[in-house]
């Protein structure tokens, strides 16, 4: 179980002599990923989802708030003491090309963390190569084919599988997949997603799925929770299917409306809102963060910041003063 409460992160952008500008990447985010569960973070670029993923994977530090891994709060620990906890959380990078060292064979790439693992657990040296083979088979590739090869000799899909196998070398408790299929050919994406799903079911690894594409989140986390992030704030959260079918926050509705409709297979949703693009939002810090773009805003929205709360209208939480269900997602066309 991995939880976070009130996570904030502010980046300082280097400005001129008069001072630097601050970018608030995360404005107090709460989350919880149960053991073996699947959770998705959804949002556009700049919403803070990647920063949050990197903080959870221990690759970045947050400013305030607390991350608790299996009951142990991380803040009181020294960076050295934290490391073994964060090792249980492995990040799967977006780009499998840069995630593998081009000068090392797959065998070398897998061997290094396995050697460490063998030392930690007191296993014999012979275990290392055997385990490397097991892991590659587990992610669906033939060890005999890839072990002696360099990353450039593999296809994008195979590379991503190797990256996943490498993450599994340390027996992680959670995989953080940040846009993990966006650079892979369309026809192969689903097989990688299916692999992640399969690993969750077979190994009980929990999955944190970070993406801008709600449809893939629906595929991977159909049983889990979905968090919609906007400008560093969670604006809606709930069970994946529930958020997708009964979105109440206008931003969630805008995101869902933006997904292309497969005309011929589906019809656009009745209340699909053609959303407006992001304006210059840097200084609009007063009131609801989405107010400037929101077609349903009122005076209250421009003055007060809504906080995440439950409502009787739906089974999920949202941060909106005027929540209303809208049918924005496409419906299946009847043949």
């Amino acid at each position: 179980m991995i939880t976070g409460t009130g996570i904030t992160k502010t980046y300082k952008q280097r400005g001129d002599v008069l001072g630097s500008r601050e970018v608030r990447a995360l404005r107090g985010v709460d989350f919880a990923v149960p053991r073996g569960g699947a959770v998705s973070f959804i949002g556009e670029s700049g919403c803070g989802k990647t920063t949050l993923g990197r903080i959870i994977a221990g690759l970045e530090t947050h400013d305030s708030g607390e991350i608790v891994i299996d009951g142990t709060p991380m803040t009181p620990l020294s960076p050295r003491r934290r490391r073994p906890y964060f090792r249980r959380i492995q990040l799967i990078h977006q780009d499998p090309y840069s995630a593998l060292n081009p000068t090392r064979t797959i065998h070398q790439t897998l061997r290094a963390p396995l050697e460490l693992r063998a030392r930690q657990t007191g296993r014999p040296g012979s275990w290392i190569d055997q385990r490397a083979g097991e892991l590659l088979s587990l992610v669906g590739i033939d060890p005999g084919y890839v072990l002696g090869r360099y990353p450039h000799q593999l296809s994008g899909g195979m590379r991503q599988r190797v990256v996943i196998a490498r993450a599994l070398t340390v027996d992680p408790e959670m995989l953080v997949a940040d846009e993990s299929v966006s650079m892979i050919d369309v026809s192969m994406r689903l097989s990688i997603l299916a692999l992640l799903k399969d690993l969750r079911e077979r190994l009980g690894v929990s999955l944190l799925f970070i993406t801008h594409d709600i449809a893939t989140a629906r595929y991977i986390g159909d049983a889990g929770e979905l968090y919609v992030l906007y400008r560093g704030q969670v604006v809606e959260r709930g069970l994946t299917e529930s958020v997708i079918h009964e979105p109440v926050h206008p931003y969630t509705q805008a995101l869902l409306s933006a997904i292309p409709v497969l005309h011929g297979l589906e019809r656009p949703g009745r209340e699909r809102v053609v959303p407006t693009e992001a304006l210059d939002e840097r200084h609009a810090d007063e009131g609801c963060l989405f107010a400037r773009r929101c077609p349903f805003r009122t005076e209250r929205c421009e003055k007060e910041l809504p906080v995440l709360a439950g409502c009787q209208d739906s089974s999920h939480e949202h941060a909106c003063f005027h929540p209303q269900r809208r049918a924005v997602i496409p419906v299946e066309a009847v043949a």
Partner: protein
Amino acid sequence: MTTLSHGPSGSPGSHSSEEGDLVAGPAAPPPPGVRVRDLVVVYKTPLGELPALGGVGLTVDPGTITGIVGESGSGKSTLALSLLNAVQPPGRIASGSVEIDGLGDVVRLDGDPLRRARGRHLGYVFQAAQNSLNPLKTIGKQLLDLGRSHGVADLAALVRDAKDLLGRMGLDGARVLDSHQHELSGGMRQRVGIMLALVLNARLVILDEPTTALDMITQATILRIIREIHKERGLTTLMITHDMGVAAEVTDHLAVMYGGQVVEHGRTTEVLGSPAHPYTQGLIRAIPRLSGDITKASALPGRPPTLGTLPKQGCVFQERCPVRMDVCATVAPPPVTTHGRTVACHATAAAPPLDGRKEQP
């Protein structure tokens, strides 16, 4: 905006110096059609010359907005470049023709006529991610460069047209023209790309991955703009994309490419609603959707071919095909057109399609 905005006024389109009569007006000519025949493009590799396009045939009706969908290695980008006769070495157009109404066979054009045709007849919109704009010059300067290189006499009118176009796409034209590339967001840059492709009154527009690297909401806006501008200006539009959804949202016709071939081509709603080629079927099944039963989504086995791994003979899709027959290994299926739908598949051609089906090993 100081230098560009105060030009003498002129009637719309009057900046077109030598081809003034070709410009859209009350009696605008119909949008051009495109006919690609037996187009073969080869790339020189250490393994010899390999075909990126293996005899592509594609007819684009005037006034349509056609999507060309394919994965990496399908040849969609090569096809787009061929329409401009802009295939770069080590590639070359080996044979075939690309007939564009009002231009003739583009493959035969070269030198100055070809350069003039690009921009005036053919507008090309580059990927938003790709830096096709000069980072050192303002957008306005680049617009003037474009005008001068095409011999536009009335540059002030050109600037006015550009502003109108940008305004139509929801931007402050004067401000954008005065900006450098880095001052614009991805969505704004993409609009500038569309403006530059259209400002010389090109009637055939090719969009290369127009929404890659854009946010979902920006993508939706750009797609809407593409659709609207296409209608308003009476264009023939070709959109190259790897994203079936993007193509489905905007286009009325869809051509699916695989391994250097157009394997299926027809009306978008029909191709999506009842795909005939096994590759199209597999690709559509592999898209996670918001509607319907998500558990029915399933991956397409195997992986896309590269130049070197294409089958030497027979159907390009044979290795991943669930309905492969003996004939597929030896004979390339010819494209067959029925009721406006073109499909290149032995299994589809043989009716009923279940006959001769083989189990995949």
